[in-house]
């Protein structure tokens, strides 16, 4: 299971990456894409939308089922990955390259409570 260093991880299987401009890029983890199976449809939030932490703000659908993706942090959606609409399978191919959306966090320290790679590896091992 691919869990890169340098990212933060939510217990709902999103990854978060702090960008130099203060925004946070968010996607689903390799573990999540493997559990979902072949993805066939992605519905992403519109830029400008303000979300609370835990809000369902995107949907990824595999051949098996539809799953909500939750905003791990509060803030404003600044961009969605439009390229995914025509190729949701890019998430299966590389879940860390195929980001879903970028947010401007309401709290600049919003990432500190999230798991690092080591803790997330342990988390998914404990769930298995």
């Amino acid at each position, binding site marked *: 299971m691919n869990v890169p260093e340098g990212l933060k991880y939510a217990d709902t299987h999103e990854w978060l990456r702090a960008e130099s401009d203060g925004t946070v890029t968010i996607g689903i983890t390799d573990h999540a894409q493997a559990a979902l*199976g*072949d993805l*066939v*449809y992605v*519905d992403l939030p519109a830029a400008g939308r303000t979300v609370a932490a835990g809000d369902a703000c995107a*949907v990824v*659908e595999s*051949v*098996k*089922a*539809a799953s909500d993706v939750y905003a791990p942090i509060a803030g404003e959606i600044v961009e969605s990955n439009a390229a995914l*609409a025509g190729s949701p*399978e890019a998430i*299966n191919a590389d879940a860390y390259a195929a980001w879903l959306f970028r947010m401007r966090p309401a709290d600049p320290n919003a990432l500190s409570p999230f798991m690092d790679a080591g803790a997330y590896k342990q988390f998914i091992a404990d769930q298995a």
Partner: protein
Amino acid sequence: MVDFGGFDMPLHYGSQIDEHHAVRNDAGMFDVSHMRTVDVTGDSRDSARAFLRYALANDVDKLKAPGKALYACLLREDGGVLDDLIVYWLGDDHFRIVVNAATADKDIEWLRALASKRAPALTIGPRDDLAMIAVQGPNARAKVWRALAGSEAATADLKPFNAASVARPFGDVLIARTGYTGEDGFEIMLPAAHAPALWQALRAAGVAPCGLGARDTLRLEAGMNLYGQDMDETVSPLESGLAWTVDTKGDRDFVGREALAAKPAARKLVGLVLTDQGVLRAHQTVHTDHGDGEITSGTFSPTMKQSIAFARVPAAVEDGERVRVDVRGRMLEARVVKPPFVRNGRVLAPSQFPTTC
């Protein structure tokens, strides 16, 4: 792995979509040993043929040559569908039926109860010693012939919905040119002890193992019902797209006939193609100009690259109509089409529609 009718079965072996395309473009195989084989054998006192003509809604008298197969429904007296099955005539007064796993015990109990009244000397024997492997795809037959010695001579001239026997090397094998994918291929029944060896031989011949996930997208594209989802005991075959399997020619008495004749179908099962982005799923509500209906099976079609479904809707709905489906709170537009969507690798249902007519 998932539980399916009491069996642990793989949803996929790797990528479900790759498995789907393997069957559409080459050859894939499914371990369908969960399906229950039941032999029905008559003797000088009671005829299996006469019994099955009464028990099944399709007429086994269509089976004129040994090895011939027929798709049929087992109905209740009120016309509800107990199960769908394939029945083979194997010669003399010996028939073989293949039923769904989840319903097998109920089916056997039902048939034995019917037989106790009408044909008590019949033998209704589950063949739990048999396994079944379905090999499907445009190259499926050729790959089976490479893997199973003697099978080419026995089955090269076999027509669809016919079966032939091969005695070795995997025990007594029955090879039927049937399937659940809309592609050519075989369903192979053989002694369970030989099944792993045949599976390995098929792998060596280049047949891709496929799971339940691909089986579901393939059968839906092929316009084939799944029992328990598209029909069950609460609906009639006439409201399930299965009128073609109910043979009302002549005055043959069969279970459910009177009930079906007394009650015209108020609903029907149709195909839907989603013209918006999204995925149709079972139990979503379908809004039509003639009243509401419900999706019974829905998925993303890997061949058409858009979502397709079966839906049970008011009988007045016609092919080509536009309907609206509530997909997770969004109203998406779909078109009514006549299944199948895909056959022998080709898309049949119009996949793209103009946005205005």
